[in-house]
């Protein structure tokens, strides 16, 4: 690699330096946060009974590692979150595609989607239990309910804002509406789909934990409720 010009070498050097600074800064922020937390809890500036402290958390975590209970709770929550996340992604892409295909359908359903999206899902979780029973399904549905409508709306919006010139090009090349979807709309919406996924994984976790608050015997949500009742 000695045949790189000076300019290129400098560019690469600069790039590497930039990456390093980003990485180190990230770690520093985390460490200083943990340090300040631990420090203020120890000196008594904040009440460690309410705020806990990193060392206490680490100890408790270690204890749960030893008796392996953490794995059960983590695993259950992870499973439920990932399942509801995958379902949300698959269903919302399918529905957004259907809406994109039919202008009529999208106009008809638009007000319903907006209303469903703004419903207070956590307040409705108890209803879900009544309908579906206190099972894993309920928790997964609770996780999905938080994310799905917003996900459909945002995906559909990104589908409709695709450059009409690019869609026209597909038609000039003899393509069909299906080609417009597969060659233009989906590929150019990939950034939107990814950012949508990032939001949804968080929302699904929120939904799943709300579900676990109410209807579970395991999972992180159950653990939180249990701990807050015994104040540990």
């Amino acid at each position, binding site marked *: 690699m000695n045949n790189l010009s000076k300019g290129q070498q400098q560019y690469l050097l600069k790039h590497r330096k930039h990456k390093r600074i980003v990485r180190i800064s990230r770690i520093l922020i985390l460490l200083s946060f943990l340090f300040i937390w631990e420090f203020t809890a120890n000196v008594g500036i904040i009440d460690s009974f309410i705020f806990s402290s990193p060392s206490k958390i680490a100890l408790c975590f270690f204890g749960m590692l030893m008796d392996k209970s953490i794995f059960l709770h983590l695993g259950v929550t992870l499973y439920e979150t990932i399942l509801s996340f995958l379902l949300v992604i698959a269903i919302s892409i399918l529905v957004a595609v259907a809406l994109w295909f039919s202008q009529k359908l999208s106009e008809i359903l638009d007000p319903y989607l907006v209303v469903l999206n703004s419903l207070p899902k956590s307040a409705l979780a108890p209803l879900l239990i009544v309908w579906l029973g206190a099972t894993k399904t309920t928790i997964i549905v609770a996780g999905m309910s938080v994310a799905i409508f917003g996900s459909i709306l945002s995906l559909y919006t990104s589908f409709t804002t695709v*450059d009409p*010139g*690019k869609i*026209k*090009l*597909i*038609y*000039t*090349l*003899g*393509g069909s509406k299906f*080609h417009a979807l597969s*060659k*233009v709309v989906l*590929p*150019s919406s*990939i950034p939107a789909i990814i950012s949508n996924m990032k939001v949804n994984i968080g929302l699904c976790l929120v939904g799943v934990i709300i579900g676990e608050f109410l209807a579970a015997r395991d999972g992180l949500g159950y653990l939180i409720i249990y701990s807050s009742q015994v104040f540990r």
Partner: protein
Amino acid sequence: MEQVLELKHIHYAYHTLEGETPALTDISFALNKGEFVSIVGPSGCGKSTLLSLISGLLEPEKGLIKINGKYLKESTTNVGYMLQHDELFEWRTIYSNVILGLEVQHMLTARTRQRAHDLLDLYGLRHFETSRPSELSGGMRQRAALIRTLVLEPELLLLDEPFSALDYQTRLTVGDDIGQIIRKEGKSALLVTHDLSEAISLADRVIILSGRPASIKQTIPLIFNLAEDTPLNRRNAPEFKTYFNLIWKELNTDE
């Protein structure tokens, strides 16, 4: 003479809730096989609309369009349409942009792939096959867009101001190049342009449209007395200026 394209009494209007925008009124003309015709007209008069109608993207409200003697709907003739913007997809390489039409028409074979490579080579884009469109200059992008149209081996080419995004120098060379290639391959072409000198240096005939709603004001056949009829030689011929002034005057008179 065999006619590739025939338009008879075409009318078209855009409809929106705000009202109706008539774009074309009573357009009739024909294009012979191998002929190169330029269309000039004021901005917004309906030139792109006319090409969209011929390519079948829009349907005329009145009138009929025939391609190779068949109605547009039944026609199997490949019509190549080059848009005002290159519309290259940034998420594809230049090569896969070029084969987009082949993909869509299920025509990807070893032979057509080879043709795509050959055309890229011919137009000096061989080393950019794996590049992204944003890495190319405006002229190169336009050439890639032309190749995307040409790999489909269209008999009739519709060109909608394909060179308008280029700087003057590239525009001359790319314009002349593309004009030569189209002639060499014996294709018929309809070129919409704002640039009168481009229209005159490339075409056999110039159709002048009136302002919106467009109708045909006049058709001017271009006859040059040249040993070698190339766009460059035309620009230097004495007839060039005469035609230029004629068309300019025609464009700027209100009937």
